[in-house]
Every structure is written in C-alpha cells, then in structure tokens.
C-alpha cells in the first residue's frame, strides 16, 4: 500500500515539474531573409487577425536588405498593453507618421515611421483613414451618439493634438474614403444590413464639414480610390447573390468584375477579381483592359493589394485563421519573393525608410535625438485641460506627471501637454546641449492655427520661452534663467499670482474635471512671470486672437517653421540686457496669455514637441 502511495506522489511531483508555467513573454519578432532582390525603403503589412483574438499584427520588410520581420510593432513597442489590438483595418502614412486603424480596439494607432507608438485616437468602430492639411479623417460605423437609423460617421481629427475637431453623419456602415480638392468622398456599404445594402457615396464639404450630396453608385460599395485624372473608382460588391459586383467610375463607365480590392498606380487601376482568382488591369485613361501576366489562381483567398511603381504586392489570406502570404511581383509577371505573414494580411503601406530590428535607420543621426528627451518640471496653472493633458490618475505625483509629459513629447511622440492658464510652465531638455548658431536654433511646437479668412488672426495662446545653461554641471535646471525676447517684450508686465484649491470652481461645462493640478499636495501655489496684454477680438462671431509677430510658443501654426522657431541670441537677463549664450541645456515655457473667453475658456499654451534645428531629421 505504502509503496503504491509513493509511486503516486512521485507521479504527481513529476507532473508538477514537467508542466510548470513560466512568465508570459511578449510575442517575439522574427526576422527572415526572404530576398536578395533589393529595392529602396520598406513596406508595412497590417495583418487583421480575427475578431476577439487581439492578433492584429504589423509586419515590416526592409526592402534594402530583403529582411522580413513578423510582429515589427511588437518589437518597437514591447510595453504596449495588450499589443497592437483587435482587427487591423487600415494603414496609411502621412507626413512623418503612420496611422493604423484598429477596428475592434476602437482606435487609430499613431506611430512614427519606424512604428514607434506616439499616441492613439479613440474612435468607435473606426474603419479607414484619409488626410488633408493638418487633419485626418476617419470613417466609422457608429457616430459619437447612437443613431436610430444606424448611420455611420466621419470624424475629423487634428494631427497635432489627436483630438476630434468635427464629426459628420454619413450613410450606413461607411468604409473607404478619399479626399479630392476640398471634398471628402466616403462609400456607404450598408454591410450590416444583409437585405438592404447601401449604394451611395457621401460627399462632404471640408469647409463646412457637412454632407452636401449623396451619389448613387452601385450596391454595397466598399472601396473608393482616386486616379491621376481625379476620377473616383468605386468597388461595389453587389449582394453576393443575383446582383453582381462591379467597379463604378464616377463620371465614367461601369466595369462588371469582382473587385475585392483595387490599387491605382500611374495610369493603371489594378483590380482583384477574387472570385476567379485573377488580377485585372484597366487603363485610367480609356478604361480598356490591359494584359497583366500575373497569375494568382493558386491562391486560397486573394486579399491585399498594393501597386507601386516598382512592384505589385499581393497577399493570400488563406483560410483567414492561419498565416497568410505576401507575394511580390514585377509587372512582367515574375514573382520575386514571398513571405509568410500574420493572420489575414489585408493592408500594405510602402515607406521610404529602411529599418533594422534595433530601430536604427541607415539615414539617421543616431547619436543625438533632434527631439525632447527629458521633462524636468511640469506645473500648469489652473485650466480646463489640466489633469487631462496629460491625464492625472490616482497616485500620480510631480515626478510621474513629468514621465507622462515625456510620453507625450519625447522623440516627437506627438502628444499634447497643456500649461493651463497664465504662469503654468514646463521645463524640458534634449540629450545634448543646443548650440547657438547662426539663425534660429530650436523649434517649439504647439497647436495654433490661423483663420482662413484673415491670417492676421487665429487661435494663438502665446507662451514665453526661458533658457538656461547647466552652470553647476549637476544635470538639473537650477541655474540662471534667461528670457528669449519676443516681439511684444516691451508691453509685458511682470507679476506673480497664487492659485488655490478653493478657487477651483468649474467654469466650463465641457470640462468638468478639477482644474487644480491634483498631484500638488499643498492647497496653493504661486507662479511668477510676464503677462501679455489681451489679444482677443470677435471676428465673424468667433473669438480669435491677433497673431503675434515672433518669439512666442503656440502662436503660429507648426508648419510655419520660422514662426515657431527661436534664436538663442534673443536671450536677455532680468534687466533686459542681451546675454550671449554659446549653448543651452534647459528650456522652460510658460503661458503668458492671461485671458478667459466666454465660450472656449482660458487661453493656455499647449506644447506638442520641440526640435533641435541643427540636427538633420
């Protein structure tokens, strides 16, 4: 009996030993050399993953080396909670950023070109993205308020603040969208309404952001692309029964063909006939079909498609629940290489950067970063975005708030930090000293914009810049500060002001969180500095500010590089005497405007980043 029992215990113990569960390690990134046939730049592959699996995955191929990396996003962002998300639906490059729409995670992931996380835009059931100016436009199956007719929406989002600025209701289940001129076109698929698909394209005027027209195209339109002649090509899927799929060219002919996907390159539109498993090419000039010797008949489920000037990239999604394959063809029909992807490789995005797994690009100055590397102090004055940008959470203190500011600003992450009302400040630095060279030395980014009618006015929330050298070499900003003299220096008035927790009474129904910085333990704090005379006027019923000439942060739009840049030679001491500084280590910006407007609340300087102009990006 006892012997038997010992055997039992032995069996149990060995079971325990052989079975143990380890730490859960993040998903790895696996690099595979797939081709010696090299080209410039790289290509991102967004794999959708199945709903609920949280397996949206961004792969990347460095085309200069022929190396394919699975789960590239994971390598760049190992600390992202629950990875990239659930069901990737679109990926686009715009400016220096990548935008990936993650449908069932209800967000647009914003990344730099190496796919390092910058921020996210929370949008419900978002589908596709398009761009114009400093705005991105996102189609979504639901609007911000529930709609009884189940209409979808298009959101306008500011690229700097990543905040929604406007929203317009469109048709049922809007999918792809594109911008032509000052108009936005979005297809309304009606894909959820099995027996009542939609068949329209909504036309939205970007100035008024209203739907001005609905164009009837064909049943169940899912894709819309613009060709060189600014003509729109719409893929209509039909009802999968008696009504056949077709490509409808607005203002042109209709082409009866299955069209799961489309990609336009030069004067040719490449259409994926997923039913007969073939690729078709049509001239965008006379719409005639051209021969295309690419054979995809062996695919299980042709899915993604991207035509570039050098190659045609086509994906096979297989059975949708296992790895897909990315194929690269030249236009003569030769397959150059293929690579195993994640689940449902649906969306491709060609970029000019070629990166290796360490994230270094061959073209980059890797020793010094051109962007903010460190935030030392953050003390906003009371304001409507305080405790929100960045977000205060229970348990935060001054130190953790600085880290949150870093998350928003370091490496040009593209986040926004508010300084609140008058006097609120932030102190930051770079990973090197900024030299005082000929001309402007440093650009500081904000979220100012100009009125389109009158560019002398706009949204300007000016802040003053102070600079300092690390004289005592202790690495901390506890040295003498010098002001960079702005255009309105002579009208500045130097004051101090004490903010109290008691004085935190809600002033704005739109922002109901406390305005007093919640991480400050004392019940009051005092700020010092200069205040500017009021600049606000009412024009066309809008409160706008006179744009100042130079020398203030968050006063001119970021694309005006000179208008948002500063010269260290402008430095003056407290007596107003110019100081000659060969370089600086610390920068402080504080809100110098001191105005509270009836509708939009107080003017508060916002910072969205800073750039050392002497480093080539």
């Amino acid at each position: 009996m006892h012997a038997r029992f010992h055997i039992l215990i032995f069996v149990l113990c060995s079971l325990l030993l052989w079975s143990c569960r380890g730490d859960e390690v993040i998903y790895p990134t696996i690099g595979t050399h797939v081709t010696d046939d090299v080209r410039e730049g790289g290509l991102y592959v967004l794999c959708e993953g199945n709903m609920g699996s949280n397996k949206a995955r961004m792969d990347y191929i460095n085309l200069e080396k022929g190396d394919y990396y699975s789960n590239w996003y994971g390598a760049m962002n190992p600390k992202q909670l629950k990875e990239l998300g659930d069901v990737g639906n679109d990926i686009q490059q715009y400016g220096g950023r990548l935008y990936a729409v993650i449908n069932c995670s209800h967000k647009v992931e914003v990344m730099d070109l190496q796919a390092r996380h910058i921020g996210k835009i929370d949008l419900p059931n978002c589908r596709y993205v398009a761009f114009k100016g400093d705005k991105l436009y996102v189609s979504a199956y639901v609007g911000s308020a529930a709609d009884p007719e189940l209409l979808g929406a298009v959101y306008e989002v500011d690229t700097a603040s990543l905040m929604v600025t406007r929203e317009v209701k469109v048709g049922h289940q809007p999918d792809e969208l594109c911008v032509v001129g000052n108009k936005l076109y979005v297809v309304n698929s009606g894909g959820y309404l099995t027996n009542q698909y939609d068949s329209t394209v909504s036309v939205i005027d970007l100035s008024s952001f209203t739907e001005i027209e609905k164009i009837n195209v064909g049943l169940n339109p899912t894709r819309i692309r613009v060709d060189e002649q600014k003509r729109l090509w719409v893929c209509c899927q039909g009802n999968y029964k008696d009504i056949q799929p077709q490509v409808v060219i607005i203002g042109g002919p209709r082409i009866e063909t299955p069209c799961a996907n489309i990609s336009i390159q030069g004067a040719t539109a490449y259409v994926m006939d997923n039913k007969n498993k073939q690729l078709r090419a049509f001239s965008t000039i006379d719409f005639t079909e051209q021969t295309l010797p690419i054979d995809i008949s062996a695919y299980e489920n042709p899915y993604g498609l991207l035509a570039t000037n050098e190659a045609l990239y086509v994906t096979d999604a297989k059975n949708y629940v296992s790895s897909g394959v990315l194929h690269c063809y030249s236009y003569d029909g030769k397959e150059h290489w293929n690579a195993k992807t994640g689940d449902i490789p649906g969306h491709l995005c060609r970029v000019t950067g070629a990166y290796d797994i360490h994230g270094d690009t061959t073209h980059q100055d890797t020793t010094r970063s051109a962007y903010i590397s460190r935030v030392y102090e953050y003390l906003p004055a009371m304001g409507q975005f305080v405790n929100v940008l960045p977000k205060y959470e229970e348990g935060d203190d001054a130190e953790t708030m600085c880290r949150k500011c870093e998350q928003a600003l370091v490496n040009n992450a593209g986040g926004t930090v508010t300084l609140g009302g008058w006097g609120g400040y932030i102190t930051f630095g770079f990973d090197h000293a900024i030299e005082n060279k000929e001309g402007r030395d440093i650009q500081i980014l904000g979220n100012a914009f100009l009125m389109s009618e009158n560019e002398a006015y706009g949204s300007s929330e000016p802040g003053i810049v102070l600079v300092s050298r690390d004289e005592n070499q202790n690495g901390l900003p506890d040295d003498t500060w010098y002001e960079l003299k702005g255009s309105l220096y002579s009208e500045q008035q130097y004051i101090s002001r004490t903010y109290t927790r008691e004085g935190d009474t809600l002033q704005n129904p739109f922002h109901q969180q406390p305005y007093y910085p919640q991480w400050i333990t004392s019940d009051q704090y005092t700020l010092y500095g200069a205040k500017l005379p009021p600049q606000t006027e009412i024009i066309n019923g809008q409160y706008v500010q006179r744009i100042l000439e130079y020398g203030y942060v968050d006063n001119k739009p970021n694309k005006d590089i000179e208008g948002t840049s500063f010269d260290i030679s402008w430095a003056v001491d407290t007596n107003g005497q110019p100081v000659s500084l060969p370089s600086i280590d610390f920068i402080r910006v504080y809100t110098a405007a001191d105005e509270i407007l009836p509708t939009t609340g107080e003017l508060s300087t916002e910072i969205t980043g800073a750039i050392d102009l002497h480093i080539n990006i």
Partner: protein
Amino acid sequence: MAHMALAVEQAELDSLYRDFHIEEVEVTARALAKDIIVPQTLKGAELERLNALSVADALRYFSGIQIKDYGGVGGIKTINVRSMGSQHTAVYYNGVQIGNAQNGQVDLGRYSLDNMEEIQLYKGQKSDIFQSAREFGAAGNVYLTTRKPYIKTGERAHVRAKMRFGSFGLANPNVGVDVKLAEGLSINLDAEYVYANGKYPFRYRRVLPSGETAYDTTAVRQNGDINAVRTEMGLHYYYRTTGFWRMHVYNYYSERGVPGAIVNNVWRNGERLWDRNTFVQGIWQEEWFDRWSTRVLFKYANDYTHYKNYDERLLPSDNEYLQQEIYLSLANKVQIFNWWDVSLAYDYQYNTLKRDEWVSQLTDQCFYRHTHWLSAATALNIKEYLRAQASVLMTHITNDKSQITNKPKVTPGVFLSFRPYPAIDLSLNAFYKQSYRYPTFNDLYYTDLGNASLRPELARQHSVELAYRKASNKYDLSFSASYYYNRVTDKIIAYPKGQQFRWTMLNLGTVKINGVDAKADMSFYLPLRFVLRTRLNYTYNTAIDVTNQNDTYYGHQIPYIPWHSGSFVFGLDYSSKRGDHYGLSYSFIYVGERYSQQENIIYNYVQPWYTHDLTLFGEWKIQRYGLKANIEINNLLGQDYEVIQNYPMPKQNVRCTLAFTY
C-alpha cells in the same frame, strides 16, 4: 442479464427506504449492472466535497475530456469528449437528452450541483442495450441524475435549505422539499437562486525576453453579472418492484452579462443575454412476463433566448430566438435466453426555431426539423468470460429548408468485455463506434453563414481499455487505462467564402485523434474512522489536422486541445462516533500547453494552467436535524490564467456554504 437493469432499479427502490449507510449495497448493485465501458462517476458525498459550483466544474475531474471555460459564474462552459468537439457530446438530464437544435452545444455551467445526485460520463455510449434509440447516437455521453426523494419508512418529508456566499458577489440560496404522498409515490421540489456580480480582478503581465516587465496591469472583469432562478419538480411513483413512472418539470430563467474578450483598448463589453428554459419530461417503465421490458420517454421543451448588445461602439444587436422540442421514445428489450438479450427502440423528435434579428431585419424566420431514430441492439454473455453488445442506429433527419435530400444514416457500434479470471475483477474492454454530429440550425441557416447543403460530420471511435478493481473492508481500489484512436471526417467548419469577409460552413476537415486516458481511484478505510480518498486522472492525446497537406497547419494539434491534462484529488474524512463528519479535500487540475488556432506557431501558443483548490467541511447531526458547513478556496495560489485566449479566469476565490437538512 434481463435482471441487470431491474437490479439497478431495485437498488434504487431499496435505497429509497434506506439510510445513508448503503454503500455496500451500491457496490453489489454496481457489480451486477457493470457496464462494458465503465463510466466515470461522481456522486453524492464525493460530489459535494469537490470544489465545484456547476456540472462543468465537476466534469474537470474526469479523464479524457477537454473543457472550454469563458470564466466567471456566468461564462459558457462546454466539454469535449476525447477531442471530438463539444457537439459530439450529448448531455442527458434524468435520462432524456438536453437539446439545442440551434447550436448543438449545452452550456454545462448552467446546471447546478445543488440538486444533482450523480454525474456520469460514458465514452462511446452507455453500454446497456435497454435505452432510447437516440442514446446510441452520440460519441460521448454525460448523464446528469437529480436527487431522488430519500424518505425512510415512517418519515413523511424532508427539507433542505442551503445558503452559499462567495467571491464575485455570489449569493446562492437553495431550498428543497421531499414529500411522501402515498406508498411508493413521492414528490420533490427544488428551487435555487444565483446572483453574482461577476466582478473579479484579473491580471495581465508580460515580460521582455530579458525578464524586465513589459507591462503588468490588473483590472476588474465587467459585465459578468448573473441573476438566475431554477425551479424543479419531480414526481416519482414506484408502483411495483418492476414498474415505475417519473415526471420532471424544470424551469430556468437567467439574465446575464456576456463579459467578452479583453483586447487592446477594450476592457468592457455590452452584451446581455436572457434565457428561459422550460421542459416537462416523463418516463414510464414496466416489465412484462419477466422477459420483456418497455420504457417510454417523452419531453416537451420550450427555450427562449434574447440577446442584446448595449455597446455603443458597435451596431446595436437585438435578437430573439425561440426553440421548441417535442420528443417521444419507445424502447423494448426482450430476454431470449438468459445469456441473450435483444432490444428495439424508436424515437421521434420535432424541433422548431423562430428567429428575430433586428439589425439584419430578419424577423419571424422559422425553421423546422423532424428526426427519427430507430435502433436495434443485442447483448450476449458467454459465461462469465465474455460479454458483447452490438447496436445499429438509423437516423433520418429532414429539415424544411434543406437543399439536399437527406438519406437515412446508419451507424454501428460494437462493445466487448473480456474477463479472463472470473475471480479477479480485471477486464479488457474494447469498442468501435460510429456517430454523426448533424448540422445545427445555425450551421444550416445562420444569416449569410449557414450552408443548407451540409452533410453530417462523422466520428469513428476505436478504444481498448484495461480495468481492474479490488475492494475489501480496508480499501477500494480501481484502476483503468485506455487507448483510443478516433477519426473525425467531414468536420463542419467555418470557411471564408472568397468574398469580402463572408464565411460559410463547409464539410472541410479531417482530424486524427490518438490518446490515452488513465485513472486511479483509491479509498482507504483507515483506523479511527478516517477515510482517505484519492482520485487521479490523466489524459494524453494528439488531435491532428490531416485535412490537406498543403495547409500550413497540416499535422498540427487542433485548437485548444492540450496534449497533457489531468487532475488529482486527495480527501481525508473523519467520522466521529456519534455520526459527525469532518473532511478536507485538496484538488489539483492541470491543463497543458495548447494552441489557440490551427497553426502551432508561437503567436498562437497558450501556456499551461493549473489550479490548487481546497475544501473543508463539517457535518453534524442532532436527532433528525442535520447541519453542514463547507468552505471552498479555489485557485489557492491565485494563478492568472486563461482557458480561452483573452478570457481571463478568476484569481483566488472563496465560497462558503451552510446547509440545513431535516
């Protein structure tokens, strides 16, 4: 042989008039009625001792099964027998199958243990030829038997009241009454209410290859609340030693949140589910001329489901489903010689489903199905050495909207038990069986996904088993080990249609399953009225996709089937001289590594999980009053695990039960 089934019923009858100390009688009865394929059984006190709230929790202690558990009190829990898919498993409630013509799955998390007397799992089939035709049809069978009234001579009624509290805001009162109405006629009523807010903390922690923490976050599960009421009534009439009838009425109502998958940026879901399940069933059994037994079963079930999604980020869904089922069965068994029995049974079932789906604007859609089963079976006993059974089942299903003509399907089964030394309880058992899993209403007609020309999915099982048992007044030991080989062909799977994300159901898939189940149940009756009970189960199995050599997952283990799984239960009971009981039970459940998708690649890898559970109980008797207290601690070490990916399971949690009996 003819008296076997009767002997069981006789034992039941006897037990109606007996006290708790009838274990020896049961042993004899079991020996007489011994199945060719020995079922795994959990019953009575052993069931109460386990860390289990529902039938699904209890089934974790069986070998040869795989459980899917979406977590929490209200989460769906289904089982797979020998990796063949949950739709190959039939679940019987007091002898009549619980149907779900809509999706073919039975959520075992909904069946409470409070009114349960016995749970049995049969691989293959219950190897008793006297059964309804339909029982020959499934690849794996779970029999749930509710408690029967135990009223001793001279007693009139029994009352039970139970209150259970626990983590996740669990409050679970239960009352039951057994009343003897006349000699042989008794009624029992049982009612239960379950409330849980379902809020439990869960943690996601990942590390970098260097060991540095990548992220570590703890959140609270939301929208996992449940509110459920179950009421049951059983009427039992034993009018002779050979004849009886029983009626059973069951009603279950629940409202619950469906907590959903936790994915990036989504920590809460808005799906709600309302269910009402009602059924009435009856059984009548009689024996004629000492040689001919007849059993009649009937059932009417009416099941309503309402699903609504309140998540504003999704399109609102609001669907209602009403299923009805009428079932009749007539089984006959004749003893030709005392070594040869034959049986014939015929069952008929009528199913309807009415569907209203608001978003897709499909309203008032109705589907109908008629099913006929006809079975013939025979059993032979050659002395004490060999027992053999063979059965053949013909199934004919007609669906009103099906596009193909369904021919009747014929499936055979052969069961053998060889006992080389009659003096020793050692047997070599084997079976071969075919069974079909028929397409459900969802497979056939689900909006846009259904495929009305589906064929049924075929499972072929081959199994051999070696079983040994030795019992004395000092111990009771039983061991068994089996090897099996199953092949599932024409597997019904969802497959993309080749148009924008549209799926359809196809008969596409072949799975080859090889496995070993082993179990050891050992009880030792120690001095000083201590009893030590141990139960060890282990399963190793490979379930390989062999559909198409060109698939990247050809030869890979199918999703969510672990190679290794097992459980170990250790219990120590003590009875005092005056009849009080105290007990401690420890259990360990292990589910090994597996993959969440068809391809066995690192991106689909799911870590093993194992939990340690502990139960302490005491039972006191004062004259005719009984009091019982029970504390369960589950997941003692607070492991953060998932059975299904993105559905986090609870960390350490506690349940306390106080029960009063009269």
